[in-house]
């Protein structure tokens, strides 16, 4: 720990391009070994869980241990389907971005379980405050794919009137808050929303997601402080996908043991969860939701996962990490793991999987055709130009009226 004293210490990632990644140093506890306390237990009963790992699917894809949520095969197949769709959608959109159909795109490859399983464990009316990488929630909540695409290509049917960068979705009907480009701001907002639900005597709760890098922001601390002080019915998720653009998670983590452990310092129940294990994410979210709904207050969940692709279409990860890392990630791939689990239980097979992939591909391709019929960013039609002056206020003031005139629209 001592570094002499001549220089301060700057953490470096375990592996850089050219290195052969070996993740054995992570020393991850085995699936099924974590205790499952009562949902209303004191946060103190989560101390070991915050540095451990809540896991259900073992290396043989069997569901083991106390956290197994014992989901019906139907529900798991639905989850699988949402994850497959998320991935296919992402891949298609990336391709379209490369073709110039949209200005920007962000995939969630490798992290589909984090969003999909959580969304399924929540109620559809629970309010979510996601970052830009939880598109899986939208699929799980049944958002129309054409609508999603219309937003991404900013066309005349974009429900955000072309105002936001692609993937910065907002969908009030689906209780999906407007995604911000500013990191972390949604975390304390979610706490405020949850407080309002409690204030109104509802049993709705709120949930929010930020990345590992974003935990460094002041808003992370603000959110946890509010959540603890007011015992807000909220689930605060940290998606630790190991990277913040080019910065390894250890730039935010420093010498801390885990991100989940940070919650303990606020007296919040805190769990580290295998984020690539659909069943574990489902179970942990279910536990935290029950806790929140019953008045037990907030939970911090760290979802341990890996960003399997570039940060965004503006990024090239081969510049800062070995290309082989994603493949060697010890917690595997969430789609593959749930698929194998279902197969192992005789509830799924490769043929059905191929059919699913084909159906989803068709859906995505067909949806894009339809979306494009409403226009694209470059060729239009877009939302009417004068719409840029709308929604600044409930009613535009003289400045906006004049400016619209100046622009001649």
């Amino acid at each position: 720990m001592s570094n002499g004293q001549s220089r301060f210490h700057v953490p470096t990632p375990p592996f850089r391009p050219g290195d052969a990644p070996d993740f054995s140093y992570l020393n991850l506890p085995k699936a099924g070994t974590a205790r499952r306390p009562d949902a209303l237990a004191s946060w103190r009963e989560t101390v070991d869980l915050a540095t451990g790992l809540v896991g259900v699917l073992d290396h043989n894809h069997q569901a083991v241990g106390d956290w197994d949520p014992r989901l019906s095969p139907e529900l798991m197949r639905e989850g699988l389907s949402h994850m497959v769709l998320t991935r296919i959608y992402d891949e298609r959109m990336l391709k379209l971005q490369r073709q110039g159909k949209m200005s920007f795109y962000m995939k969630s490859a490798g992290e589909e379980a984090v969003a999909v399983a959580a969304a399924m464990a929540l109620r559809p009316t629970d309010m979510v405050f996601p970052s830009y990488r939880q598109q899986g929630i939208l699929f799980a909540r049944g958002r129309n794919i054409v609508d999603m695409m219309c937003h991404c290509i900013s066309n005349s049917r974009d429900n955000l009137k072309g105002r936001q960068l692609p993937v910065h979705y907002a969908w009030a009907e689906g209780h999906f808050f407007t995604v911000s480009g500013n990191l972390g701001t949604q975390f304390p907002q979610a706490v405020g929303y949850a407080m309002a639900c409690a204030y109104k005597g509802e049993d709705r709760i709120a949930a929010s997601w930020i990345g590992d890098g974003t935990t460094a922001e002041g808003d992370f601390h603000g959110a946890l402080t509010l959540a603890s002080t007011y015992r807000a019915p909220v689930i605060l998720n940290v998606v630790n996908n190991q990277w913040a653009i080019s910065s390894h998670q250890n730039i935010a983590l420093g010498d801390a043991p885990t991100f989940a452990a940070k919650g303990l310092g606020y007296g919040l129940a805190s769990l580290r969860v295998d984020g690539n294990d659909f069943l574990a994410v489902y179970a942990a979210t279910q536990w935290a939701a029950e806790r929140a709904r019953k008045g037990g207050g907030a939970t911090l969940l760290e979802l341990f996962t890996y960003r399997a692709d570039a940060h965004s279409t503006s990024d090239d990860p081969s510049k800062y990490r070995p290309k082989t890392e994603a493949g060697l990630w010890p917690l595997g791939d969430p789609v593959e793991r749930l698929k194998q689990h279902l197969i192992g239980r005789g509830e799924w097979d490769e043929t059905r999987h191929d059919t699913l992939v084909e159906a989803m591909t068709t859906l995505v391709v067909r949806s894009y055709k339809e979306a494009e019929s409403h226009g694209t960013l470059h060729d239009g039609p877009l939302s009417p130009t004068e719409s840029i002056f709308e929604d600044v206020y409930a009613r535009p003031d003289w400045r906006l009226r004049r400016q619209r005139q100046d622009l001649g629209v």
Partner: protein
Amino acid sequence: MPAMNIIQALNSAMDVLLDGDPDVVIFGEDAGYFGGVFKATDGLQAKYGLDRVFDAPINEAAIAAMAIGMAARGLKPIAEIQFADYIFPAIDQIVSEMSRIRYRSAGQFTAGCVIRSPWGGGIRGGQTHSMSPEAFFTHVPGLQVVVPSNPYDAKGMLIAAVESGDPVIFFEPKRIYNGPFDGVPDKPLSSWARHPKGEVPQGRYTVELGKAELVREGSACTLITYGTLVHVAEAAAEHCGIDVEIIDLKSLVPYDIETIAASVNKTGRVVVAQEAPRTSGFAAELAAQIQEECFYALEAPIFRLTGWDTPYPHAHEWAYFPTRDRMIRALKTVTEA
């Protein structure tokens, strides 16, 4: 009608709001049990309960974010930032979030809420209890920015602000909480009880946002200002022998361009006064817009009377603050030009 000072008027506004609408909640540092360091929320927790008027942790960003989240769920939060000088930790939540929730979601979500904050100088508060940071907020699309200058407006505008449905930055000139100030340092405080705008109805009423008020008619020069300086302006007008027309702006965003233009077109001469540092203050916006709007009516350069481009000093406060004497000099410069 009872006489109220600005604190009492604000308290009365919040009382009316809490009473009339269960969605109204109030919070801030020391704003709960104690009733705020200036006592604006005094007695409200006792009357309405711990979950409607409550203390917040010392994190202004979290306070603003909590307001946004609550507003998104339909509450009407009134958040207090203890001094306007301490609003900067919250500015990201205000600029990047609160102001844009409606826009970026194309109206699906809104963040209507009010941020109240004691504002301005003249109380020997040094550089961290004297700032007038209104200009920052006037540059942010989606925010309304207001500065009442008397008890009647304070109450009516606070109620209007909560009802507006959009975020409002509500700056309160703390120098005149307890009585108007004529810009002559170290004189005994005068009382709102002797001021017509110190008469405040008990019940609910609103003062429309976006409207300025001609508080003195005149023909020689237009003096536009807001907050504490409205009273300094009135005192200067009384003492300078110039027939000054004074506009109390009240709302900075949106400002009342019609009232301003009508007056300037009449007088042809303008002083715009603010307490804040000169460069890029709100007086610059007014001067820029007026010269565009009333170019051919102007007979002299628009004069900006402002604080200096330095942090707000403590001991030499009265060399920094736009006092009555400095205002008289400004009026003379403009009318003699």
